[in-house]
């Protein structure tokens, strides 16, 4: 016999309890450790891997001219400001000469005195010459008189002796002249040296360039070697780039590079590797290289600005490739997971070159078109079921 009242209640109760049980079982099987892991898959594709290197560098000038005094002194004036363009030989600044000008004046006077000395010595030579000429003429005349027996032997002897004395006097005067001339040369040289010293206090631009820093102001005292201004050649800007030693073996001069400056990360400049430094940095484990700009951007990149450098290496012949996210290490072997129905399967592979976008060449272990697991929501294991989805749940799009 039917019992409608009870049946209605029973139905209602079971109507509640059975869905409850259903939800319970469904949740147990679809969430938590018993649930299959959502995974995405990707096929092994034929792809040209263009390995590239990524480096970071700083914009530097090839040569920097630090212009300063050669000896300690005080800055008298600085003629240029940072950012000024200068021409070769242009006066940049001057050191205080202190007593140098007075010493030049003293040398000037000494020079005049030496010149007068030379003139006096020349006059003496001429005088001695005149005396010797007269004495030798007298000797000649008295010798003729003696041969005519019109004078005495004694007188001729006296004249001869007189002639000898005047000859000696001439020699002395000549020596005197020479000495005066040497003195003049000495004083002249000394004056020239002072003048040169004086001119070295004037700081001149060695090349056409750009003033990048003004390190001292008038009045400050510098030691020899400190710079007053720094001038660079703006056309010689390059990037001092550092590349991780990992995988940088292919780095060669003349490779073309893409450059992005920190101030303009999207703007893409080009350039090329100028040279690889023979010496690598042992501490940071980086290779150092110089990268030149193909064309200098306008405005000029600032010195010391950070720049990212991407070196595009020669593309490899196309081959099977996978994103690096598909690769996993398991029991010491590198490999990939194949979805293979419900239960995933691990297959070791051998990898080749990789590029900066994360593509890795697969040398062996997989064939073109093979489906492998790319992303997964949880670690994979052969004992955990997987479910292929388009995107992993929870990943923001």
């Amino acid at each position, binding site marked *: 016999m039917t*019992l409608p*009242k009870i049946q209605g209640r029973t139905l209602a109760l079971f109507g509640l309890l059975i869905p409850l049980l259903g939800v319970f079982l469904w949740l147990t099987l679809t969430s938590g450790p018993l649930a299959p892991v959502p995974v995405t898959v990707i096929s092994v594709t034929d792809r040209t891997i263009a390995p590239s290197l990524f480096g970071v560098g700083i914009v530097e000038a090839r040569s920097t001219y630090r212009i300063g005094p050669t000896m300690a002194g005080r800055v008298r004036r600085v003629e240029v400001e940072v950012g000024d363009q200068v021409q070769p030989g242009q006066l940049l600044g001057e050191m205080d000469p202190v007593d140098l000008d007075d010493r030049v004046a003293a040398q000037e006077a000494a020079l005049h005195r030496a010149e007068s000395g030379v003139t006096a010595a020349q006059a003496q030579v001429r005088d001695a010459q005149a005396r010797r000429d007269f004495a030798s003429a007298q000797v000649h005349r008295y010798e003729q008189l003696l041969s005519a027996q019109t004078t005495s032997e004694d007188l001729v002897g006296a004249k001869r002796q007189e002639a000898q004395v005047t000859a000696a006097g001439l020699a002395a005067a000549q020596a005197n002249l020479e000495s005066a001339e040497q003195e003049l040369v000495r004083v002249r040289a000394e004056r020239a040296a002072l003048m040169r010293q004086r001119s070295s206090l004037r700081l001149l631009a060695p090349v056409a360039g750009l003033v990048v820093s003004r390190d001292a102001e008038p009045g400050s005292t510098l030691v020899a070697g400190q710079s007053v201004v720094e001038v660079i050649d703006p056309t010689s800007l390059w990037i001092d780039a550092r590349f991780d030693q990992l995988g940088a073996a292919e780095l060669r001069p003349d490779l073309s590079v893409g450059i992005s400056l920190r101030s303009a990360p999207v703007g893409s400049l080009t350039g090329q590797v100028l040279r690889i430094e023979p010496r690598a940095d042992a501490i940071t484990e980086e290779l150092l290289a110089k990268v030149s700009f193909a064309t200098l951007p306008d405005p000029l990149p600032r010195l010391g600005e950070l720049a990212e450098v991407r070196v595009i290496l020669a593309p490899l012949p196309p081959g099977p490739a996978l994103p690096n996210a598909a690769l996993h290490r398991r029991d010491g072997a590198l490999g990939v997971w194949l979805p293979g129905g419900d239960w995933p399967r691990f297959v070791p592979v051998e990898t080749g070159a990789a590029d900066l976008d994360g593509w890795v060449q697969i040398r062996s272990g997989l064939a073109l078109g093979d489906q492998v697991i790319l992303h997964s929501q949880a670690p994979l294991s052969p004992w955990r079921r997987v479910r292929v989805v388009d995107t992993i749940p929870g990943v923001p799009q």
Partner: protein
Amino acid sequence: MAEAGLGIRIQGLHKRYGTGDTAVEALKGVDLAVAPGEVVGLIGPSGSGKSTLLKCLGAVVEPTGGRMTLGNDLIYHDGWRIPDLRALRRDKIGFVFQAPYLIPFLNVTDNVALLPMLAGRPNREARAAARELLAALDVAHRAAAMPSQLSGGEQQRVAIARALINRPPVILADEPTAPLDSTRALAVIRILNRMARQYATAVIVVTHDEKIIPTFQRIYQIRDGRTHEEAGLGRTLE
């Protein structure tokens, strides 16, 4: 039909609560005999021992002395009692209360069939027996209803059916008509009489309901712990 020696019989039943000086003697030698098929009234003022007597008859309170037989079974004899009072209540005594006290979460049929089902009789058999009784009591049409959906009289009839399900030799009815108007009260008494005859059951109706007292053939009046048998008016019910 009524058969001498069967039904319920008690002789010199004593019940003392407490011991020593504080002891209260509630029953001081009660004698009572009801034959199968007979309906007797048990009346008495409050505190007369009426309630205690009912509990002794219902095997929930043990008398301290006296003798009671139910059908052919000796229940009490001067301090001795049969070991399993619960089974006795279940199998040999039917209870009808002032309120029906039906189990609210069972429907009418199952309320009636509950005892045999708990005793292990097959459900279908027990329910068939219950439906038979319900038919006899004119409530078969409410067999599937829940107790809360019945009127007071219907509930009381279902309660009577429950009391009868094990065909007990005796039915104890405790103020079965108190909440009912006189028509319904008389109807209940009529049913009890009919059932007593039909199932050869002794029925003791504890009451002080003036409406129904005149219907009894015999009345036991209990006063001060003792019963006094009186002839009732035996007014015909039809």
